[in-house]
């Protein structure tokens, strides 16, 4: 399974990585510190290369999670359907959660730090 993490915080990426390792899941992991770089990559990847799951942070400089979702809308539908996007945020703001749940590309909202239960639920889905 291909998994991508988009987060400007290296410690947060480290934690998500370690959590996945602990679950013992066989994954191909791509990590991005910048949402813009991630988007360029998604545009160029073939359907096979595309991640099955994307963990997306919201609060990032330059291009934040929301802006990423706006641009994601412009990708071909086949690509959009391949990727399940999960918001992985430290924000406890209810407004953020509501806004995320309204977005058609967002499959779920996870509050940091990610737990084994969160991962179990997500990785059985695709």
């Amino acid at each position, binding site marked *: 399974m291909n998994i991508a993490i988009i987060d*400007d*915080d290296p*410690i*947060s990426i*480290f*934690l998500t990585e*370690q*959590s996945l390792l*602990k679950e013992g899941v066989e994954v191909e992991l791509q990590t991005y*510190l*910048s949402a813009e770089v991630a988007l360029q990559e998604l545009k160029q990847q073939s359907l096979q290369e595309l991640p099955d799951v994307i963990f997306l942070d919201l*609060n*990032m*400089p*330059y291009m934040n999670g929301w802006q990423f979702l706006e641009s994601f809308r412009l990708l071909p539908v086949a690509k959009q359907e391949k990727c399940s996007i999960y918001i992985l945020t*430290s*924000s*406890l*703001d209810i407004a953020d959660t509501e806004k995320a749940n309204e977005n058609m590309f967002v499959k779920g909202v996870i*509050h*940091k*730090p*990610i737990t084994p239960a969160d991962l179990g639920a997500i990785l059985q889905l695709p």
Partner: protein
Amino acid sequence: MLQNHNIASAFAYSTQPCLVLSREKSPLIVAANKALQTWLGYAQEELLNKVFFNASDKFMAALGVDELELSEIFEQAIATKSAVKRNIKYSVTASAETSSKQNGGFYEIFPIETKAGISYLAIQIILHTLDTSAAPQAHKSAASTKSVVSGSAPNQSLELLIDSLTNVIFTLDVEPTGLYRFSFVNRAFQVTTGLPVEKVIGKYVHEIIPEPSLSMVLEKYKEAIEKKQQVSWQEVSQYPTGQKIAEVLVVPVLNAKGECFQLAGLVHDITPFKEAEARQVRLTQDLYQQNRDLQQFTYIISHNLRAPLANALGLVRHLPNVAPETNLFQQYVAHLKTSIENLDKILEDLNLILSVRDRQDQLHKEHVFVGEVCWQAAQALEVELKHAAGQLEINIDPEFKVQANRAYVYSICYNLLSNAIKYRSKERLLKIKVTSDSTSEDGPAIHFTDNGSGIDLQKAGDDIFKLYTRFHSHVEGRGMGLFLVKTHIEALGGYIKVKSTPGQGTTFSVFFKELVS
């Protein structure tokens, strides 16, 4: 000082029952007119110089009021310096004798001022069925104040009443030539304007009221006469007693042919209300500002403070299952340290922001030479500047001096210079220019210009000055600097502007409120 017998004589021949009391804790009856004695069957010596509340059972019963309520009315009349009017109440406890005297009507309690302040309280009872021949006369006088003006039938009690009011009352004779002449002004006119009554009565309006007020009031008088109805407006005037905001009302008095021969005017001082209103507006603004700060505070707590906390939490949860003395364990510990340090930094930031806001009012300000402070900030950044191999040119007029808080000016210069170094372009050597412009139309300005990587302002907009907003992912930063610069310059009464072309450079312009010489 008014003598007691003067006061007594003022009310003596009134057809309405009147009582005058001294202003004391236990008021003494200073005067009681014939009408009152006849009405309730008191003898003169039963009342005069007696303590009011001891000698006036019948009186209070006839008005249907008790000692407590009357005392409250007295206090109100004194505190507001105005008449308090109450209807006569039929009281169940009144004896047959007094209740038969209750004809219905009202009574008015008003203060009488002497040079020593409010010295007396008058109680005047207006009975509906008492002596109908005199009543309409009194009512007509009250409406037009004509009897006072012409002096044809001097009604001293009315004059006293009008003089004891704190509202300015005046009448103007409208002359066939279209000029207005003061025919009456009350004592409050003198108190408010500082002009003696004797010097006003008989004078024309244009001799008393200066421009620009004159043109305005003449316009209003004309309007009242033409429309045959009352006209009111608010005006701000400078008097010897200070600036007053007043609500003015003029009423045309018409003769039998429907022509206006007189204007009656009332001026109500609304300065205290206007001041209260201004205070209210300020309070609302403060509240609005506080509320916005609170929202921002909440945002910081839920987003920025939560981020390192969530990391620390996650790391700590994993740690028990990580073998100690491994490379991975060391990584966990290092990350944990960073997370907790970040947490601490954000708390420090919060503290700094709140202290800037809090101290805005009692900020210590001095004369600050901006050029000097800018050099100091540049010196503090010498190592960074050298590391970047950058060139810095500071060209600030040595006379560029502002009234400001030195630490704030330093923070503004330091943060802007430090940003210019941080966000330099990789493609060329860094050049920073700091210049002053004392004659700019937008206010005295300091411009910080660099040839750095620039900001796409169309994308960023006003967000660049927001707290914890960052636009460069390749450089360390917490998004605190520009927020602080903006907060500091605004606390000094100035503002900041930015111009930038991506790939070419940025100019931040800091505008101060004014220069000092």
